[in-house]
């Protein structure tokens, strides 16, 4: 079982991420027992079957970088968890997808970053609205993951607006003109 970061702390995870292997059919693949995060294709193929599980809080959906989060518009109130996959940590589409889920589509549940999630991106991920960060299993030792929590707070007052702080610095703080400072 992998560890996740939530509310600034390390937790043991209760969810399984289902990924389709070659030859797997979204319509027929067997779901693992327990809480599961399924690919969008599985959700779309079996929405009626899966909706009660989602409403019971034991099923979530994950989006790939090339998938439009608007595909979930009608289901977001039912889903306890939406994840966004980072196939490579340097593939930044997930940041825009998360931003759209939070600001445009009004998603308020758990938003989880999965895949190639590294500590050096933690700060950016949080700013874009992710509430749970899930590094790849085995990527960090428990000690490294504890140390990685420091990266959640790399910067104290970022300049621009983002999901976590929806107003830019110039609206959040009163910044002084030059005349107000001692020479």
């Amino acid at each position, binding site marked *: 079982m992998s560890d996740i970061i939530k509310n600034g702390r390390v937790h043991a995870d209760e969810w399984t991420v289902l990924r389709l292997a070659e030859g797997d059919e979204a319509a027929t693949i067997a779901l693992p027992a327990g809480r599961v995060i399924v690919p969008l294709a599985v959700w779309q193929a079996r929405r009626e079957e899966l909706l009660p599980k989602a409403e019971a809080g034991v099923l979530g959906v994950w989006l790939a970088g090339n998938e439009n989060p608007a595909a979930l518009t009608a289901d977001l109130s039912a889903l306890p968890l939406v994840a966004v996959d980072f196939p490579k940590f340097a*593939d930044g*589409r997930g940041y825009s997808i998360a931003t759209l889920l939070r600001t*445009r589509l009004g998603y308020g549940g758990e938003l989880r970053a999965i895949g190639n999630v590294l500590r050096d991106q933690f700060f950016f991920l949080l700013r874009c609205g992710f509430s749970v960060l899930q590094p790849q299993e085995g990527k960090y030792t428990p000690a490294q993951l504890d140390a990685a929590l420091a990266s959640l707070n790399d910067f*104290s007052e970022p300049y621009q607006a983002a999901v976590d702080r929806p107003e830019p610095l110039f609206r959040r703080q009163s*910044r002084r003109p030059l005349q107000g400072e001692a020479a």
Partner: protein
Amino acid sequence: MYQYDEYDQRIVDERVAQFADQTRRYLAGELTEDEFRPLRLQNGLYIQRHAPMLRIAVPYGNLNSKQLRTLGHIARTYDRGYGHITTRQNVQFNWPRLEDVPEILDQLAKVQMHAIQTSGNCIRNVTSDPFAGVAADEIVDPRPWCEILRQWSTFHPEFAFLPRKFKIAVNGAKEDRAVIRVHDIGLDIVHNAAGELGFRVLVGGGLGRTPIIGEEVAAFVPWQQILNYCEAILRVYNLHGRRDNAYKARIKILVKALGVPEFARQVEEEFAHLKDGPSTLTQAEIDRVAGRFNDPVLSALAQDAGYRARLAEDKAFAAWARRNVRNHRVQGYASVVLSLKPYGVAPGDLTADQFDAVAELADRYAFGEVRSTHEQNIVLASVREADLFALWQEARAIGLATPNIGLLTDIISCPGGDFCALANAKSIPIANAIQDRFDNLDYLFDIGELEINISGCMNACGHHHVGHIGILGVDKNGEEFYQVTIGGDQGNQTTLGKVIGPSFAAAEMPDVISSLINNFIDNRQDDERFIDTVRRIGVESFKTRVYAERTARLEAKEIAHV
């Protein structure tokens, strides 16, 4: 120039700590090479041919004397005694040790400098007119807008891992000196029919392997909305730009693939959601940022009689003033360009002692401030006419008064194969060989305005596509050759040059340039510039001349060997 407040300083200080820890983890083996690469690139740190190369941000080219002295200190202490001004107005060092970089960043932070986003697939350093704030043809000073964009783009969490690098340039004058048409976003500050201030937005320009001139996506975006509009552009690009092929990942490829109307439609759709949102700018914020520029308050002075007398009696001084001194918007002042193109030096290089000496000149004659330019020179923005003669003498003593600004020897050149791991060919020796051929000042003045741009590879850091004469290093079976374009131009009439034909060996290049110049001299009308003659008569006549003279040279050589 802009003075940091406590928030600006804190962000830079926190960056120093963050990058020091990342470097430590990399050296300890906790971060892999692949994981560290984007992190170090977003901090301007390349692994180069000889050593890491560190590119330090110079936002829109503005530097003060304290910063220049720090750069001199870095050149002396951590490098081999010199630094290099880049075509994006930044400063780079070619020989620092990776282990020293955290310490260098710490010293930079103490003088309000950093290396944030000078490389990597993120929004790069914003560039602008080196004469901003003092140019006689200025409509609006672009610097506060550049600074607002700098802050907005610094560690923008949504746009830190774009498909490719992303460059924004801002122009606020009638004449575009920021080359906005070859940027991912080019912003032209304009007034609409109602007299309101806003931005004309060009998107999708860029050089490199697929050179494209940016196209207008919005004729007028009100100033209040400019961050919202840029965010819309970046979001469309981040979500839809290609990521499968680095050569096709720039926004220009997306704009071409969608077509401008469709791209603009997608941006407008995104913008509709962002318009009037929290990032909408306020007059108070503009005033605050503009108010943090500690520009000297200048009032008009009487024209200096001594200056005019010197011009009349000292031919060398007059030659320098003609090429290197520009009109200023305030009477009695002038802007001065210090040439970093003396003969035999890599274009754009400054020694540690020269950094210090320029700082000294800036303090004495230019209110402690300088600008770096796209053409790899240095500008002293505001100098009293009465001080020009003394300044010239001192600049001459430190080798920075070559009177060649805008002339054939004021060559833009990338570092090329001598330094850059990407280069296919050398650039600096070609620049030096051409400078050597054209060392007669009277002849240079007679040739008039001419831009030669040299790139050592397709990435086009030397912007060869927009040089009146462009030179591109190419590799043929492991040997270095040079392809020549003519007719390129930057500015309001930005044009991409045309290739004249097969490439040349390095040793031929001065002769090739001579043939081009001779053809120009033979065909020019009145005081026509080289580029105007090319435009009037076309490329063909130049091509014919160059290859005919080349054949004659080769035959003469053969006869000599018989």
